[in-house]
Each structure stands twice: as structure tokens, then as C-alpha cells.
């Protein structure tokens, strides 16, 4: 077994595109779920609307990349308002139901045959990322540090991605230590109490939904540019649940929780995948125990097991505060 390859792959996964995308999606979800207590089960829809907003406006209508980004952002804001306006006055579970349904509707619309002219159907839409790569200031070549090795396009995507992650974390940090963030956290604890103190709870929840949606839509842009294609099945509910896993893994309501969570999540997936495959190829595992086709499923099981152990022994997440968890919330 080639352990150096296993570890360099793990390291690449730690800083790779998936980590960036899921860190951004989870930062948004952390604003919703971790800070405000909103059960948004449709974070994937924000990624999809942003990704497709960018892709369709550039590929089909010939807009510039900048205009495409603005359209994607607008789409995310509109989606947040559409989802939030009717449900945020109701109990928390209504938002959960509506968002999970809306995310599937969004995915199925982008997947539909009748819109294939614009969306490319289930194959997805490409032909939109030239603009993004044409402004790449990084000279052609290979860049890396230690075992990391990327070409100029990957380096550009990752630089933009990690810059966005950094800025998003800074924004969340500034907001959550302000009185504005205090209102959100108070809403998470008990919204009636916040109402009785003269705060417009509905409006704050709407702001939180929009902010988290916009942060999630940055993940949509990154996955679109990084893969140079948007495909509907990249925005399935699985995406949302991975993002939830990442938020809880890193520690909810912690600024860097989603980033740490995303890195560890993808490192775990990379490690289990590489170790199992190599062990299989080296003949340590016989076909009677595990066939080559089953590796993909088993690694998810192992990651699931790891997450379960983490929740049992460190329920507050990696960066969480055990004291907070000891309090009976509500």
C-alpha cells in the first residue's frame, strides 16, 4: 500500500474544491441552523439557483460573468424571500417541510426535458466558465506545496474559493458578535421572548434566511466554475444533508465550525476511499468480504460510523462548547 499517496490525496481533499463548496454551503447553513435555529433543509436549492442563474445567463443569453453572478445572487435572494415570507411566521417545522420540497422542485425543474434548451436537462449546462478563467491572473504552470500539486486553473478556482470562505467567515464573525447577531441567537433560544422585548422576529428570520442563502449561493458559483458545468443531480438533498453533517461535525454556531467540518468530512471520505481501494488492490481484502463495487458504499458506512462515534463522544462538534450543550435548550 502506498501510504504517501493516501496522505497526499487526503491533503488535496482538505483544500480541494469539494471542501470549498461544502464549507461555503455549510457557513450559510450555520447562519440558518446554528445561529438562528431555522431548519432549512433546502440549502441545495440556493446552490442550484446560483449555479444555474450564472450558467444560463452566460451560456444562453451571452451575459458577462459579472452579470451572471449578479443574476445568481438575485436568484438566491428571491428564493429566500419566496421560501421565508409564507413560512417564517409559522412554527419552525413548516420551514423544514417547505424548503425540502422547494429544493426538489428546483432540481426537477432544472432537470426537466421541456427546459433542456436552457438547462441542458440531466446532462447539465456548460459553456459558461470561459469568462471566469479568462480573468485568471495566474500564469500557466503547476503550483503546489509539498505533496499538493495543482495547475493554474485549479489554483485560480481554489484561490477564489478560499478567499470567499475567508471573507464569509469574517462576515459571520463580525455579524455574530454584534447586537444583530445577538437577536438571531436569542431567536434560536425562544422567539416569543424576543418578540416580547420589541424585536421584529419575522424580519430578523427573513434576514437570516437571505444571508445564509447568499452564502450558500457562493458555493453554487464555486461548484459551477470548478466543474465548468452545472448538473441538476449535484444539487440533490444529499448536498443539504452533507452540509448539515459538516455543520454539526465542526460545531454549530461556531464561526470556523463549517470550515473545519468540511475539511475533515472530505478528508475522511478520501482516506476511507483510498485505504479501501489500495487494500483491495494489494489483496489484503478478499472478494468474499468486499468486492470492488462495494468499496464506494462501505466507505460511506465507515464515515457514518466515524460520525456516530464523534457524536457520542463529542456531541458538541469539534469546535463546540460542551457547557452550552449541557443546558437544556428551551
Amino acid at each position, binding site marked *: 500500500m502506498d501510504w504517501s499517496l493516501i496522505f497526499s490525496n487526503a491533503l488535496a481533499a482538505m483544500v480541494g474544491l469539494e471542501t470549498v463548496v461544502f464549507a461555503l454551503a455549510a457557513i450559510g447553513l450555520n447562519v440558518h441552523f446554528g445561529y438562528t435555529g431555522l431548519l432549512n433543509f433546502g440549502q441545495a436549492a440556493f446552490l442550484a439557483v446560483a449555479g444555474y442563474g450564472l450558467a444560463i445567463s452566460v451560456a444562453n443569453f451571452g451575459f458577462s460573468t459579472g452579470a451572471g453572478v449578479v443574476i445568481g445572487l438575485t436568484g438566491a435572494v428571491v428564493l429566500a424571500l419566496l421560501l421565508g415570507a409564507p413560512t417564517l411566521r409559522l412554527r419552525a417545522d413548516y420551514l423544514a417541510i417547505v424548503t425540502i420540497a422547494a429544493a426538489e422542485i428546483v432540481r426537477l425543474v432544472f432537470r426537466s426535458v421541456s427546459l433542456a434548451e436552457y438547462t441542458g436537462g440531466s446532462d447539465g449546462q456548460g459553456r459558461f466558465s470561459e469568462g471566469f478563467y479568462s480573468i485568471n491572473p495566474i500564469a500557466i504552470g503547476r503550483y503546489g506545496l509539498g505533496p499538493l500539486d495543482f495547475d493554474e486553473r485549479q489554483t485560480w478556482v481554489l484561490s477564489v474559493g478560499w478567499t470567499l470562505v475567508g471573507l464569509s467567515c469574517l462576515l459571520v464573525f463580525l455579524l455574530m458578535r454584534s447586537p444583530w447577531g445577538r437577536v438571531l441567537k436569542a431567536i434560536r433560544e425562544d422567539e416569543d421572548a424576543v418578540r416580547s422585548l420589541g424585536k*421584529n422576529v419575522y424580519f430578523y428570520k427573513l434576514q437570516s434566511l437571505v444571508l445564509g442563502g447568499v452564502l450558500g449561493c457562493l458555493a453554487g458559483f464555486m461548484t459551477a466554475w470548478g466543474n465548468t458545468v452545472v448538473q441538476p443531480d449535484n444539487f440533490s438533498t444529499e448536498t443539504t444533508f452533507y452540509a448539515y453533517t459538516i455543520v454539526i461535525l465542526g460545531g454549530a454556531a461556531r464561526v470556523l465550525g463549517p470550515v473545519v467540518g468540511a475539511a475533515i468530512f472530505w478528508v475522511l471520505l478520501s482516506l476511507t476511499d483510498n485505504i479501501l481501494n489500495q487494500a483491495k488492490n494489494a489483496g489484503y481484502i478478499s472478494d468474499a468480504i468486499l468486492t470492488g463495487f462495494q468499496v464506494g458504499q462501505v466507505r460511506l458506512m465507515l464515515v457514518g460510523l466515524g460520525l456516530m462515534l464523534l457524536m457520542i463522544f463529542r456531541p458538541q462538534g469539534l469546535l463546540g462548547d460542551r457547557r452550552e450543550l449541557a443546558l437544556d435548550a428551551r
Partner: protein
Amino acid sequence: MPADLTKADPAVPDRTKAGTPRKDAARQAFAGVEAVPGSAKPDPILVVDGVTRRFGGLTAVDVAHVEVQRGSITALIGPNGAGKSTFFNLLTGFDKPDVGTWTFNGASLSGVPSHKVARRGMVRTFQLTKALSRLTVMQNMLLGATGQKGENFLRAIFPMTWRAQEKANTLRAEELLVRFRLDAKRNDFAGTMSGGQRKLLEMARALMVGPEMVMLDEPMAGVNPALTQSLLTHVKSLREEGMTVLFVEHDMDMVRDISDWVLVMAQGKVIAEGPPEQIMANEAVIDAYLGGHHDAPLQDEEQAAPR
């Protein structure tokens, strides 16, 4: 405590009558007020007219007319299920009546959402305390301050735009915490406090809003006797500062001790009002609490009725 209802203990009113200027003023204001349901007060801060709330076939609240005197402590009592808490919810915008209007400081509050009710100066607490568990005591307090610049999304990003105000609010919160003897817990999570301390925190937090009228829903429920005395003192001090207090309570001793006027609700209606000494002896009130025939021997047919 049926005994408390029927016999007025003369020792208790005497102790409370040796009062403060505000207490005397409140008492005097009620001097000429008739002790009948819906009686007019000299200077009402809250006037309620024909408020009805039905849940399906059940009429939970059906209040024809009630006025609450400014600067007084008014108790709202009544047996379980009388509609006291529902009435509170209606007045503070946490529930909507089927019909009815009410005014606060002369301005209508009908249909005004709860957060605007609070901003107008009518702040409530809850029967089941709502301490914000995973916020510190100080954060709980600061949340109460109104008109905070830093609660605006765009300004929140720039601390220099709200830091001075935050500092002033913190000083005010500090004073209140000292007064309510919670200053030692300043940086603890509110969830670590005892039930009584949460009640104190909730009251202190309500004061951060700077209310004119404080609505306390069972402030003494589940509080140990030692803390009850301290809470009583705090409620009285609200009146001394010129605030109006309306509170729901079950403990008759406490009602008699601190209230200037008592409203009695039963089956959604205000069935009696008057000064506390008088209300304890009121026939309608005793009937509401103990049933209409509590002191009459059972009739033959009632005795024969199968259990």
C-alpha cells in the same frame, strides 16, 4: 387556600397600608372608584372594550369593559381556565381576538403585532419563564434595550457605529443586575440559573425595554418563599418608579400584600373588581373559586346522583 378567601385577616392590610407616597397616591386614585366590573378609573392607561376570543365552541375570553389605572398595581386573579393568560396574550399582541378594541395611552392597540406593543411601552413576562438559555445573563439584558443601532444588519458589520451605545446599555444593564442581585452571574449562561433567578432575570430584562406598563404573568409561580419576598419588593418598586403593573397571580396573600386593585376573571368574563380587602369577601368571587353552593348542604338529588 379557601380560608384566605373567606376571612379577611385584618393584620395584613394594616402592614401594607403604612405605604409609600406612590402607594398612597395609587390608593387615593381608587378612592372614588366603584367596585363593580368595568368601573371607570380617574386616569386609565389601558382601556379594554368588548374583547372576545373563541377557540372553536369555547369562549376563552369575553371581557366587556375594563380600565387599568395608571401608576397602580392591579392584580388579575381567577380560577384555572378563567382566561387570564389568554387575556394577557390578546392585550400584548401574542394572540388575536375575534372582536374587540383596546387602547394603551389613548392609542389603539388592536391588531398591533407583539413587538410593536412592546415598543409602545407595554412589556410582558411569561408564566413559563423564557430565559434565553445559551445567552449569558448580560446578553439577555442587552437584548432588552430598544433602538439599538447595532441591530441593523449593515451597521452591525461596523462596530464603531454601535459601540458607544452598547457601552451605555451595558452600564444600564449592570445597574439593573445589581438591583436584582444578579450581577455575580453576569457572564453565566442564563440556562444555568435556578427558576427563581430566571424570574428575576426576566423582570430585569423587561425593564431594559423602558416600559410604562409591565404585565407579569404569574411572577411568583414556582419560586421558593425566600425569593418570593424579594420578587414582591421588586414589583412594588416598579410602581415607585411610576410604572403601571398588571399581574396574574394565584397566591391570595401576595395579591393582598401588593395590589392596589384587583380584577377577578371567571369563565372568560371579568366578574368583579375592587380593592383587595373587599374582593376577598365578594360573594361572586368566592362562588367562582369554590363553586356556587360550597357552603350549602348538598341537595337530596345531588347526594343520590351516581358518582
